[in-house]
């Protein structure tokens, strides 16, 4: 089964807890936002109660959004501007 590879940029506290801002995520095809969220659970440095938003094309995406090869995604903790 072919896999997918996507570029992901993390913001805020996620950048520190993941150890880098940009990284490449590989997953068997097909993949969804929920798969990405589940993959993030392996990191003990990420607080289990931290809500994480997944953004593609400048839009917050739901759990069932299908992630396709070559996409550029953004991982965001709760916003804190203002």
């Amino acid at each position, binding site marked *: 089964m072919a896999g997918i590879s996507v570029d992901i940029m993390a*913001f*805020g*506290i996620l950048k*520190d807890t993941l150890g880098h801002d940009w990284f490449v995520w590989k997953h068997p095809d097909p993949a969804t936002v929920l798969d990405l969220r589940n993959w993030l659970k392996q990191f003990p440095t990420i*607080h289990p*109660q*931290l*809500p994480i938003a997944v*953004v593609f094309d*400048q*839009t*917050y995406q739901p759990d069932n959004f299908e992630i396709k090869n070559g996409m550029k995604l*953004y991982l*965001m*903790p*709760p*916003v*804190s*501007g*203002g």
Partner: protein
Amino acid sequence: MSMRQHFSISSEPVTADVIKAFIQEASTGATVIFEGIVRPDQMGNQEQVAIIEYEGLAEMATKELEKIGVQLQSQFDIQSIYFHHVLGKVAVGQTAVWVGISAKHRKDAFGALDVLMDEVKKTVPIFKKEIGQENSTKWVVPTLQNEKK
């Protein structure tokens, strides 16, 4: 009547004069200009905040602000909105966010300002990190701590 609006996010500050020139028109009865200023709060380790560093996804932030603008136009009778948020380091006492709103009546101007700032804190992708006087750092994560408003 169409509402005039300006949403920007950059490393450069703006001035109240620029905002006032944008929002005020002949039929305006009320203008509200708000500046959000960095406070010298205590960090978790009792160190005092010296600087807040903001980062964000500017293009998406502008898109989210435009959605908020549509919401405000449906809720309030306002004439114009000017919103600017700084990205980068902002020292205690300096302004990080500017908002100007004009309306015929003060209740619409104040009400729209309040809703705008509440919505900014829900959806606009801007993130802040506190930097203390001794250079320790802490990301502000509203859901994991009780942020003072």
